[in-house]
Protein backbone atom coordinates (compact mmCIF):
# COMPACT_ATOMS: atom_id res chain seq x y z
CA UNK A 1 0.00 0.00 0.00
CA UNK A 2 1.22 3.49 -0.82
CA UNK A 3 2.02 5.56 2.25
CA UNK A 4 -0.29 8.46 3.02
CA UNK A 5 0.85 11.42 5.12
CA UNK A 6 -0.80 14.75 4.40
CA UNK A 7 0.43 17.54 6.67
CA UNK A 8 -2.26 19.86 8.06
CA UNK A 9 -2.85 23.45 6.99
CA UNK A 10 -5.02 26.16 8.57
CA UNK A 11 -8.03 24.86 6.65
CA UNK A 12 -7.26 21.18 6.02
CA UNK A 13 -6.67 18.31 8.44
CA UNK A 14 -3.68 16.00 8.78
CA UNK A 15 -4.41 12.66 7.10
CA UNK A 16 -1.98 9.95 8.09
CA UNK A 17 -1.96 6.19 7.56
CA UNK A 18 -0.13 4.04 10.09
CA UNK A 19 0.58 0.68 8.41
CA UNK A 20 1.52 -0.94 11.76
CA UNK A 21 -2.06 -0.58 13.04
CA UNK A 22 -3.86 -0.19 9.68
CA UNK A 23 -5.17 3.10 11.04
CA UNK A 24 -6.08 6.07 8.86
CA UNK A 25 -6.36 9.17 11.03
CA UNK A 26 -7.87 12.56 10.18
CA UNK A 27 -7.06 15.30 12.70
CA UNK A 28 -7.44 19.07 12.67
CA UNK A 29 -9.83 21.52 11.11
CA UNK A 30 -11.51 21.23 7.74
CA UNK A 31 -12.87 24.24 5.85
CA UNK A 32 -10.96 24.39 2.57
CA UNK A 33 -11.97 26.67 -0.26
CA UNK A 34 -12.22 23.65 -2.56
CA UNK A 35 -13.38 20.59 -0.65
CA UNK A 36 -13.22 18.08 -3.52
CA UNK A 37 -9.68 19.09 -4.46
CA UNK A 38 -8.58 18.09 -0.96
CA UNK A 39 -10.70 14.99 -0.37
CA UNK A 40 -10.80 13.30 -3.81
CA UNK A 41 -7.16 12.07 -3.64
CA UNK A 42 -7.84 10.75 -0.11
CA UNK A 43 -10.92 8.88 -1.34
CA UNK A 44 -8.86 7.39 -4.18
CA UNK A 45 -6.29 6.18 -1.63
CA UNK A 46 -9.03 4.70 0.60
CA UNK A 47 -10.63 2.82 -2.30
CA UNK A 48 -7.23 1.36 -3.24
CA UNK A 49 -6.62 0.29 0.39
CA UNK A 50 -10.03 -1.38 0.60
CA UNK A 51 -9.41 -3.13 -2.74
CA UNK A 52 -6.22 -4.57 -1.19
CA UNK A 53 -8.38 -5.88 1.68
CA UNK A 54 -6.58 -3.82 4.33
CA UNK A 55 -8.78 -3.97 7.48
CA UNK A 56 -8.88 -0.19 7.87
CA UNK A 57 -9.53 1.55 11.14
CA UNK A 58 -10.53 5.12 10.32
CA UNK A 59 -10.20 7.68 13.12
CA UNK A 60 -12.06 10.96 12.55
CA UNK A 61 -10.66 13.49 15.04
CA UNK A 62 -11.81 16.79 13.62
CA UNK A 63 -11.74 19.97 15.67
CA UNK A 64 -14.05 21.75 13.25
CA UNK A 65 -15.82 20.87 10.00
CA UNK A 66 -17.58 23.40 7.80
CA UNK A 67 -20.78 22.26 6.12
CA UNK A 68 -19.08 21.46 2.77
CA UNK A 69 -16.64 19.23 4.66
CA UNK A 70 -19.47 17.37 6.45
CA UNK A 71 -20.65 16.35 2.98
CA UNK A 72 -17.16 15.01 2.17
CA UNK A 73 -17.05 13.06 5.46
CA UNK A 74 -20.43 11.50 4.68
CA UNK A 75 -19.16 10.51 1.22
CA UNK A 76 -16.14 8.84 2.88
CA UNK A 77 -18.37 7.00 5.36
CA UNK A 78 -20.56 5.76 2.48
CA UNK A 79 -17.48 4.30 0.74
CA UNK A 80 -16.60 2.49 4.00
CA UNK A 81 -20.23 1.41 4.59
CA UNK A 82 -20.49 -0.11 1.09
CA UNK A 83 -17.27 -2.03 1.77
CA UNK A 84 -18.67 -3.28 5.09
CA UNK A 85 -21.96 -4.36 3.49
CA UNK A 86 -20.00 -6.26 0.85
CA UNK A 87 -18.35 -8.25 3.65
CA UNK A 88 -15.18 -6.17 4.04
CA UNK A 89 -13.50 -5.41 7.37
CA UNK A 90 -13.54 -1.78 8.40
CA UNK A 91 -14.22 0.23 11.57
CA UNK A 92 -14.62 3.92 12.35
CA UNK A 93 -14.03 6.00 15.49
CA UNK A 94 -15.24 9.58 15.96
CA UNK A 95 -12.99 11.37 18.46
CA UNK A 96 -14.28 14.61 19.96
CA UNK A 97 -13.73 17.14 22.73
CA UNK A 98 -16.67 16.61 25.14
CA UNK A 99 -16.90 20.40 25.70
CA UNK A 100 -17.94 20.74 22.06
CA UNK A 101 -21.55 19.52 21.92
CA UNK A 102 -21.68 20.46 18.22
CA UNK A 103 -18.90 17.97 17.46
CA UNK A 104 -20.54 15.26 19.60
CA UNK A 105 -23.83 15.81 17.76
CA UNK A 106 -22.06 15.69 14.41
CA UNK A 107 -20.51 12.34 15.38
CA UNK A 108 -23.88 10.98 16.51
CA UNK A 109 -25.59 12.09 13.31
CA UNK A 110 -22.92 10.53 11.08
CA UNK A 111 -23.40 7.24 12.91
CA UNK A 112 -27.19 7.15 12.52
CA UNK A 113 -27.24 5.48 9.10
CA UNK A 114 -24.23 3.21 9.48
CA UNK A 115 -24.19 -0.53 10.10
CA UNK A 116 -20.37 -0.77 10.16
CA UNK A 117 -18.61 -0.83 13.57
CA UNK A 118 -18.73 2.83 14.69
CA UNK A 119 -17.70 4.24 18.04
CA UNK A 120 -17.87 7.72 19.60
CA UNK A 121 -14.79 8.44 21.71
CA UNK A 122 -14.82 11.50 24.01
CA UNK A 123 -11.25 12.71 24.52
CA UNK A 124 -10.23 13.65 28.03
Amino acid at each position, binding site marked *: MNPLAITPSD*TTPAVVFDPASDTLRFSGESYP*ENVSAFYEPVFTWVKAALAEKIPLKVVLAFGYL*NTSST*KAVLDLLMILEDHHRAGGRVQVEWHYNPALE*VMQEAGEEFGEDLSLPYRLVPLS
Partner: protein
Amino acid sequence: MDAAQLLAHYQTAKEKRIVLSFMGIVTQEIMVEYGKLIQQQEGLTLNSRQILFGTFIELAQNIIRYSAERAGPADAVRGVGLVLVSEQETTFTVSAGNLVAPATADLLREQLTALSVMSPEELKQLARERRKSGPPAGSRGAGLGLIEINRRASSPPEFDFSPFGDQLFFSLSVKIAKGTPL
Protein backbone atom coordinates in the same frame (compact mmCIF):
# COMPACT_ATOMS: atom_id res chain seq x y z
CA MET B 1 -12.24 59.95 5.18
CA ASP B 2 -11.37 62.95 7.31
CA ALA B 3 -10.73 62.90 11.06
CA ALA B 4 -14.35 63.66 12.00
CA GLN B 5 -15.63 60.82 9.81
CA LEU B 6 -13.10 58.39 11.24
CA LEU B 7 -14.08 59.40 14.76
CA ALA B 8 -17.77 58.90 13.95
CA HIS B 9 -16.97 55.48 12.49
CA TYR B 10 -14.98 54.57 15.61
CA GLN B 11 -17.73 55.80 17.95
CA THR B 12 -20.40 53.77 16.13
CA ALA B 13 -18.19 50.69 16.34
CA LYS B 14 -17.74 51.24 20.10
CA GLU B 15 -21.46 51.78 20.71
CA LYS B 16 -22.35 48.65 18.75
CA ARG B 17 -19.60 46.71 20.59
CA ILE B 18 -18.02 45.57 17.35
CA VAL B 19 -15.41 42.92 18.01
CA LEU B 20 -14.10 42.84 14.46
CA SER B 21 -15.17 44.06 11.06
CA PHE B 22 -14.00 43.72 7.50
CA MET B 23 -15.09 45.36 4.26
CA GLY B 24 -13.47 44.51 0.97
CA ILE B 25 -12.35 41.49 -1.05
CA VAL B 26 -12.92 38.49 1.21
CA THR B 27 -10.08 36.08 0.51
CA GLN B 28 -9.54 32.67 2.08
CA GLU B 29 -6.48 34.10 3.88
CA ILE B 30 -8.41 36.99 5.42
CA MET B 31 -11.14 34.60 6.52
CA VAL B 32 -8.56 32.32 8.19
CA GLU B 33 -6.87 35.17 10.09
CA TYR B 34 -10.15 36.69 11.30
CA GLY B 35 -11.28 33.20 12.24
CA LYS B 36 -8.21 32.83 14.46
CA LEU B 37 -9.21 36.00 16.33
CA ILE B 38 -12.71 34.61 16.85
CA GLN B 39 -11.25 31.37 18.21
CA GLN B 40 -9.57 33.46 20.92
CA GLN B 41 -12.73 35.39 21.81
CA GLU B 42 -13.58 35.27 25.50
CA GLY B 43 -16.91 35.55 27.33
CA LEU B 44 -18.66 32.51 25.85
CA THR B 45 -18.52 28.73 26.23
CA LEU B 46 -16.21 26.64 24.07
CA ASN B 47 -19.25 25.22 22.30
CA SER B 48 -20.69 28.69 21.63
CA ARG B 49 -17.30 29.89 20.41
CA GLN B 50 -17.22 27.00 17.97
CA ILE B 51 -20.71 28.00 16.72
CA LEU B 52 -19.60 31.65 16.44
CA PHE B 53 -16.51 30.59 14.48
CA GLY B 54 -18.52 28.24 12.26
CA THR B 55 -21.15 30.89 11.51
CA PHE B 56 -18.41 33.37 10.59
CA ILE B 57 -16.75 30.81 8.26
CA GLU B 58 -20.02 29.92 6.50
CA LEU B 59 -20.96 33.60 5.99
CA ALA B 60 -17.44 34.55 4.80
CA GLN B 61 -17.38 31.61 2.37
CA ASN B 62 -20.81 32.67 1.07
CA ILE B 63 -19.37 36.11 0.22
CA ILE B 64 -16.28 34.56 -1.42
CA ARG B 65 -18.47 32.27 -3.55
CA TYR B 66 -21.68 34.17 -4.19
CA SER B 67 -21.26 37.96 -3.85
CA ALA B 68 -22.35 39.60 -7.10
CA GLU B 69 -19.56 42.16 -6.64
CA ARG B 70 -16.30 40.54 -7.74
CA ALA B 71 -12.74 41.87 -7.56
CA GLY B 72 -9.12 40.79 -7.35
CA PRO B 73 -6.50 39.44 -9.78
CA ALA B 74 -7.89 37.62 -12.82
CA ASP B 75 -6.74 34.19 -11.62
CA ALA B 76 -8.14 34.70 -8.14
CA VAL B 77 -11.35 36.68 -8.36
CA ARG B 78 -13.19 36.84 -5.04
CA GLY B 79 -16.40 38.28 -3.68
CA VAL B 80 -16.54 41.72 -2.09
CA GLY B 81 -18.56 42.17 1.06
CA LEU B 82 -18.90 43.24 4.64
CA VAL B 83 -18.60 40.91 7.60
CA LEU B 84 -18.59 41.84 11.26
CA VAL B 85 -18.96 40.39 14.72
CA SER B 86 -20.56 42.34 17.56
CA GLU B 87 -21.29 41.59 21.19
CA GLN B 88 -24.50 42.00 23.19
CA GLU B 89 -25.52 41.13 26.75
CA THR B 90 -26.16 37.41 26.21
CA THR B 91 -25.24 36.93 22.55
CA PHE B 92 -22.69 37.60 19.85
CA THR B 93 -23.93 38.53 16.38
CA VAL B 94 -22.27 37.73 13.07
CA SER B 95 -23.48 40.09 10.33
CA ALA B 96 -22.70 39.92 6.64
CA GLY B 97 -23.63 42.10 3.68
CA ASN B 98 -22.99 41.90 -0.04
CA LEU B 99 -24.56 42.67 -3.39
CA VAL B 100 -26.74 40.09 -5.11
CA ALA B 101 -28.58 39.99 -8.44
CA PRO B 102 -32.40 40.32 -8.22
CA ALA B 103 -32.94 36.65 -9.20
CA THR B 104 -30.56 35.49 -6.44
CA ALA B 105 -32.35 37.75 -3.96
CA ASP B 106 -35.69 36.07 -4.75
CA LEU B 107 -34.14 32.64 -4.22
CA LEU B 108 -32.43 33.64 -0.97
CA ARG B 109 -35.55 35.30 0.43
CA GLU B 110 -37.56 32.17 -0.32
CA GLN B 111 -34.94 29.89 1.31
CA LEU B 112 -34.40 32.05 4.39
CA THR B 113 -38.14 32.53 4.95
CA ALA B 114 -38.71 28.76 4.76
CA LEU B 115 -35.79 28.02 7.13
CA SER B 116 -36.85 30.68 9.67
CA VAL B 117 -40.06 28.83 10.59
CA MET B 118 -38.48 25.38 10.92
CA SER B 119 -37.82 23.76 14.31
CA PRO B 120 -34.30 22.60 15.25
CA GLU B 121 -35.40 19.00 14.63
CA GLU B 122 -36.76 19.88 11.16
CA LEU B 123 -33.52 21.73 10.34
CA LYS B 124 -31.52 18.70 11.46
CA GLN B 125 -33.55 16.39 9.21
CA LEU B 126 -33.25 18.79 6.26
CA ALA B 127 -29.46 18.99 6.71
CA ARG B 128 -29.32 15.20 6.79
CA GLU B 129 -31.33 14.84 3.56
CA ARG B 130 -29.31 17.57 1.82
CA ARG B 131 -26.01 15.98 2.87
CA LYS B 132 -27.10 12.72 1.22
CA SER B 133 -28.68 14.16 -1.92
CA GLY B 134 -25.89 16.59 -2.78
CA PRO B 135 -26.00 20.31 -3.54
CA PRO B 136 -28.93 21.96 -5.30
CA ALA B 137 -28.37 23.44 -8.77
CA GLY B 138 -26.32 26.64 -8.67
CA SER B 139 -24.62 25.87 -5.36
CA ARG B 140 -20.84 25.77 -5.16
CA GLY B 141 -20.86 24.42 -1.64
CA ALA B 142 -22.94 21.60 -0.23
CA GLY B 143 -26.05 23.82 0.01
CA LEU B 144 -25.91 23.22 3.74
CA GLY B 145 -24.55 26.52 5.05
CA LEU B 146 -27.80 28.41 5.56
CA ILE B 147 -29.44 25.37 7.13
CA GLU B 148 -26.60 25.02 9.66
CA ILE B 149 -26.64 28.77 10.40
CA ASN B 150 -30.39 28.64 11.15
CA ARG B 151 -29.97 25.53 13.23
CA ARG B 152 -27.32 27.03 15.50
CA ALA B 153 -28.71 30.57 15.83
CA SER B 154 -30.31 31.56 19.15
CA SER B 155 -33.18 33.23 17.24
CA PRO B 156 -34.18 33.20 13.55
CA PRO B 157 -31.55 35.19 11.59
CA GLU B 158 -32.66 38.62 10.38
CA PHE B 159 -32.28 39.35 6.68
CA ASP B 160 -33.04 42.21 4.34
CA PHE B 161 -32.69 43.17 0.69
CA SER B 162 -32.29 46.88 -0.18
CA PRO B 163 -32.09 48.27 -3.72
CA PHE B 164 -28.53 49.24 -4.68
CA GLY B 165 -28.25 50.38 -8.31
CA ASP B 166 -29.57 47.55 -10.47
CA GLN B 167 -28.68 45.01 -7.78
CA LEU B 168 -29.68 44.50 -4.16
CA PHE B 169 -27.73 44.78 -0.92
CA PHE B 170 -28.33 41.54 0.97
CA SER B 171 -27.75 41.67 4.72
CA LEU B 172 -27.97 38.83 7.21
CA SER B 173 -27.48 38.96 10.99
CA VAL B 174 -27.15 35.82 13.06
CA LYS B 175 -27.29 35.80 16.88
CA ILE B 176 -25.39 33.16 18.84
CA ALA B 177 -26.04 32.57 22.54
CA LYS B 178 -22.96 32.94 24.76
CA GLY B 179 -24.05 29.89 26.73
CA THR B 180 -23.53 29.28 30.43
CA PRO B 181 -19.85 28.84 31.29
CA LEU B 182 -19.23 25.66 33.28
